[in-house]
């Protein structure tokens, strides 16, 4: 299909708005390709699609797939808004995985990880990442990489032989290598992402803010986020990205979709926070929580998570911070019952036995069928004896 309906271009009026925005003027020259046809199976690209089709079949059944239909429809809606005519070919899967990541395969399968969803502040920020991934897809970067990797194909054959029946593993290793995009490809995807955002009516300035937020987290652990994230391992330096994205967005405005995003993610917030704590990278988590609390205000779930981050890190002064956050969370309606158990543990560790007993009792009262009530009762007995 070679019609031009899918062309994304900016009219003169828009260019006028961009007077002085050289970077964006260049970006606006980009035109989206028409929808892709499924490549023949006997081609390298066809093989890649077939492999990804199998992976997608697995993904559809994966218990890590977030099953909330409203969330799924919402994410698909964002992808369609950005992808325009390519919408029927893009399928978005939300996966429960607590790292910042998204990816898109050449067959149109897109994955968005829950760690990313926890970190974006609004719909526009999410759209910037989805738009970036659609940029890779529209430019067929994965296929480019496949064709650049003949030597790795030879390596894949060797690995297949070495590993006998686990050919899929070899294919995965090979593909993983191939999907590390070049920096130029990442820059191109950034540029296209901003074009798609702007065209769809999102505020493109939010793209740079994603990076500023990630960098603030990474600084807590002393590293550049580009070196930490699976998604951006091969991406340009985060400072460079922020600057470039801000330049590309210069002179443009649009909506952020803050309330729409809050409404959609709120039912999942506690689960995402608990998964975040499992990463065990508490310095980063505390920076993230500070930002979320600054954005949403103090609510029971965020204060619970911050209290847990301090309690589990257990560094100097952390227990006091944990108790302060957990005590406050315990007074708020949306805090989970386990906030009282965590408070009891923190207080018991500090030798505040009487207050610990009160917290444990409150936990049992709120969660009488809790899986650990028998154990909690032994703590209470022990504290009452001492």
């Amino acid at each position, binding site marked *: 299909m070679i019609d031009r309906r899918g062309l994304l271009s900016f009219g003169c009026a828009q260019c006028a708005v961009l007077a002085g925005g050289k970077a964006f003027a260049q970006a606006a020259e980009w035109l989206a390709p028409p929808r892709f046809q499924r490549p023949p199976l006997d081609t390298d690209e066809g093989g890649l699609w077939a492999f990804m089709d199998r992976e997608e079949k*697995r993904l559809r*059944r*994966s*218990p*890590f797939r977030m099953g909330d239909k409203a969330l799924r429809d919402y994410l698909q809606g964002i992808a369609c808004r950005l992808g325009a005519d390519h919408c029927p070919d893009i399928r978005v899967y939300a996966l*429960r*995985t*607590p*790292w910042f990541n998204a990816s898109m395969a050449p067959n149109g399968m897109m994955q968005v990880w829950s760690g990313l969803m926890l970190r974006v502040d609004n719909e526009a920020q999410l759209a910037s990442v989805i738009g970036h991934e659609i940029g890779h897809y529209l430019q067929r970067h994965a296929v480019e990489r496949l064709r650049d990797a003949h*030597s790795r194909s*030879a*390596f894949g054959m*060797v*690995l297949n032989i*070495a*590993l006998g029946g686990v050919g899929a593993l070899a294919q995965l290793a090979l593909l993983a290598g191939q999907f590390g995009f070049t920096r130029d490809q990442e820059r191109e995807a950034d540029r296209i992402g901003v074009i798609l955002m702007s065209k769809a009516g999102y505020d493109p300035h939010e793209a740079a803010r994603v990076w500023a937020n990630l960098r603030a987290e990474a600084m807590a*652990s002393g590293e550049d986020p580009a070196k930490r994230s699976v998604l951006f391992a091969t991406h340009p330096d985060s400072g460079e990205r922020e600057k470039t994205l801000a330049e590309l967005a210069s002179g443009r405005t649009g909506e952020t979709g803050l309330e729409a995003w809050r409404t959609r993610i709120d039912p999942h917030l506690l689960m995402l926070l608990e*998964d975040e704590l*499992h*990463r*065990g*990278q*508490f310095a980063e988590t505390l920076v993230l929580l500070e930002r979320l609390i600054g954005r949403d205000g103090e609510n029971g779930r965020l204060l619970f998570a911050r209290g847990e981050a301090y309690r*589990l*890190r257990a560094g100097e002064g952390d227990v006091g911070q944990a108790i302060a956050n957990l005590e406050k969370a315990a007074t708020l309606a949306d805090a989970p019952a386990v906030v009282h*158990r965590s408070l009891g*543990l923190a207080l*018991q*560790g500090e030798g505040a036995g009487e207050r610990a007993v009160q917290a444990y009792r409150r936990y049992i009262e709120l969660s009488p069928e809790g*899986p*650990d009530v*028998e*154990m909690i009762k*032994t*703590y209470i007995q022990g504290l009452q004896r001492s």
Partner: protein
Amino acid sequence: MKIHRLVLAACASILAACSNVAVVEHGDALVSDRLSVQIDQPWNRFENSAAGPIPTWTREGFTVDALQFFVAVKDGKPIAPARDKAKPMIFRDGMQAHEIVSLFENFYTQDGSTFRLDRLAPDSFLDGDGFRFEFTRLRKRDDVRLSGVGWAAVSGGELTAIVFTAPRIHFFGAEIGEVERLAGSARLR
């Protein structure tokens, strides 16, 4: 050159995975020179291998059923190496049962797997006071739902635990009786 190095690394990994396997016959067995257990049927034992640095026994392969031993972990020491830059899973003498279970929760979720505590209650272990915890783990790498059970106790300031995980369908139910007997026989030397 790069390809040769990668092939060599792959072969080394395969060999490493196979190099420390031994059969543990039925009867008395000693784990990490400190923990004695009685076993009904032979197990395959992996140590310092692809199964990780934790002594691991299995019948069907450690990606299927895995019986893991955390023996005499001293105050201030990790129960297992942490991944990436995650906080080390450090045991402290004086930790409550929940805090010890949190260490195992971190151990089993550091790859992105999920962990749900199904039960935690006092239980006898190492011929003294300990606790038993049961959990469900959804393993990230292959989407397999695993059931888990562990026993732990702190004796002389040292933490010892035995944890068994296996797919909920078939394997866990088939082996749990024997694992319970094994845990009940555990004694620290």
